């Protein structure tokens, strides 16, 4: 190589080429991977979580509407056919009814026989005291707020019109009022203020006489105008669980620092206290307090070959990376010699979170499988750490002085499996994925969006107010 060649080579070699804008990895990677014909790097989970969250919320809204609407229609919707039920009548009441029946039969036999070809001469009115809780109405009206469950049958002289109506097998009977004074006796339940049944409908069995219903054809009830089925139930649960946590930095790189993500070791745990509101048999909303202890150990290394990073030596010692660049001569060619330095970090962070999660659950006899989504509001209670620097010195540092994001917001996805011990207690396992939306910056060069997973075991107690 002559002096001419050397001059030309020196002119190019000594030049630190600046990379133009638009050539970062994120911008170039799609094109490179396309040309390599390999699958593109998976995107971060943030968008996926948002979509899953929106999906669950939409599904929940739809399912809630669907089930509520369906149950309303099925049981109290307008002109819904009642299922056949049996109403237990006490012996004493039966006797009373039969006496009335006898009277009525006596009074009305001639008229009834003249107006109908069927044997309806044993028409009676009854006052049912004992009844099935699901006989007539929805919801089970323990508080009498729903449609009355029982029918007060009032003895009254049957008119020709009444009999005609009674003989129609699918007569619609309007429910327009009920007596709130009594939990069992409701007067004037129907428009006609009377419902007659055939005496032959009373059957005897071991538990007493029963009124086989319906006997005058299938009765149809109509929902009262002022009836509003409750949207939310009053069942709650409390739960406590604890478990392990695994986490990963979704590092935000500034182009100068790389964390050796493959040598990281970590052991973290979390404990939870939860309170949940059972909105519906399939839907619940829960919140609570979650204490997470993050611990990590990882190496920081620096790979950049072309930037003089000696300036980082002037930074605090716990900066992730330092590098020394020197040159040595090998013949006529200058060869860069780089020394990579590694700093090992030990971080400990304690975070308090308030999760709000909506879940849908599939109930089985003993098991319940659930999935849900929601959000966490988090606050960093404690952050501290140590590092072993390039000179192998142990350095304590308090990340509180450099941690710039103390409060944060996470997206949460969860799956759970409950094993019901009895009506009140259940054991459960709960798996959650949390993606922090805000960036945690612990030192001057690294900032991250932690992604962490928890797997917990706990116990749940259900109770109704």
């Amino acid at each position, binding site marked *: *190589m002559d*002096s*001419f*060649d050397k*001059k*030309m*080579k020196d*002119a*190019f070699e000594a*030049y*630190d*080429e600046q*990379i*133009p804008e*638009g*050539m970062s*990895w994120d911008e*170039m*990677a799609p*094109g*490179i*991977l396309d*040309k*390599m014909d*390999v699958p593109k*790097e998976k995107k971060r989970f943030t968008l996926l979580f948002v979509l899953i969250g929106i999906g669950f919320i939409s599904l929940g809204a739809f399912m809630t509407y669907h089930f509520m609407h369906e149950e309303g229609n099925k049981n109290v919707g307008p002109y819904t056919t009642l299922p056949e039920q049996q109403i237990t009548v006490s012996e004493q009441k039966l006797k009373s009814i039969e006496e009335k029946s006898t009277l009525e039969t006596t009074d009305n036999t001639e008229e009834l026989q003249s107006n109908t070809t069927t044997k309806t001469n044993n028409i009676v009115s009854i006052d049912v005291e004992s009844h099935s809780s699901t006989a007539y109405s929805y919801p089970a009206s323990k508080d009498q707020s729903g449609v009355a469950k029982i029918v007060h049958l009032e003895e009254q002289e049957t008119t020709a019109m009444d009999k005609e109506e009674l003989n129609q097998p699918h007569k619609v009977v309007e429910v327009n009022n009920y007596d709130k004074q009594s939990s069992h006796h409701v007067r004037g339940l129907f428009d006609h203020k009377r419902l007659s049944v055939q005496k032959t409908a009373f059957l005897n069995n071991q538990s007493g006489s029963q009124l086989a219903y319906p006997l005058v054809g299938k009765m149809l009830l109509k929902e009262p105008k002022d009836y509003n089925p409750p949207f939310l139930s009053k069942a709650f649960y409390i739960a406590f669980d604890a478990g392990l946590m695994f986490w990963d930095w979704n590092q935000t*790189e500034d*182009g100068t620092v*790389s964390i050796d*993500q*493959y040598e990281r070791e970590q052991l973290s745990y979390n404990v939870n206290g939860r309170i949940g509101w059972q909105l519906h048999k399939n839907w619940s909303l829960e919140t609570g307090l979650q204490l997470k202890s993050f611990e990590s150990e990882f190496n920081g290394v620096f*790979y*950049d*070959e*072309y*930037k003089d990073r000696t300036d980082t030596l002037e930074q605090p010692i716990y900066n992730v990376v330092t590098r020394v660049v020197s040159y040595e001569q090998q013949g006529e*060619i200058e060869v860069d*010699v*780089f020394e*990579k330095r590694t700093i090992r970090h030990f971080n400990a962070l304690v975070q308090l979170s308030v999760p709000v999660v909506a879940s849908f659950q599939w109930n089985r006899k003993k098991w319940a499988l659930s999935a849900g989504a929601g959000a966490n509001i988090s606050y960093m209670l404690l952050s501290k750490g140590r590092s072993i620097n390039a000179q192998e010195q142990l350095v304590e540092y308090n990340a509180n002085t450099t941690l710039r994001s103390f409060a944060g917001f996470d997206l949460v996805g969860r799956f759970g499996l409950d094993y019901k011990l009895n009506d009140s207690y259940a054991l459960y396992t709960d798996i959650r994925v949390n993606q922090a939306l805000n960036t945690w910056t612990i030192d001057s060069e690294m900032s991250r969006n932690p992604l962490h997973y928890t797997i917990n075991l706990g116990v749940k107690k259900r109770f109704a107010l």
Partner: protein
Amino acid sequence: MIEKKIINKCRKGDQRAFRELYNATVPYIFSIVKRYVFAESDWKDVVQDAFAQIFTKINVYDENKGDFKPFIRKITVNICLMHIRKNKKTPLLTSMSDFEEPASIDLDQMRFQNLNRTDIENILKDMPDGYRAIFLLHVIDEFTYEEISEMLEITKETVRSQMFRAKKWIMKKSIIQYKKSSYGLF
């Protein structure tokens, strides 16, 4: 220096390792691309081609046979040459009759040492493609005549003669540049 571990991860298709390798080597790759390809609009495309080739061919890289840097340099130069061929649609070699041979020039006379990098870049920009490619391959990227002859699929003698002419062409241009500068023309 690129760590073995990163290279091994790249071989396994680890895209995080791709990112690290890219960040570590893109200034070097870009400096090569910029030497060969003058059209700024083509830089991004050529750099992408170069990295696609590097990531694809990293499996055949043998640490025992040499450093990683020459390996990626060769790939990048080849990509650049392909790009030049594709866009020019003409042979890369410059015909000897295309340009007037410069007169014999004394190196001391030309004041070559006074030219800075920008001057040299400007001179190279005007250089015929054939001369420039061979000149860059040999002088800057240190490929031997034999390697260049393989890359360009020409004889070693052709490489040698083109190189000789390239140098003369540069010297002539340098003198013109120097004289213009001396007379305050620019």
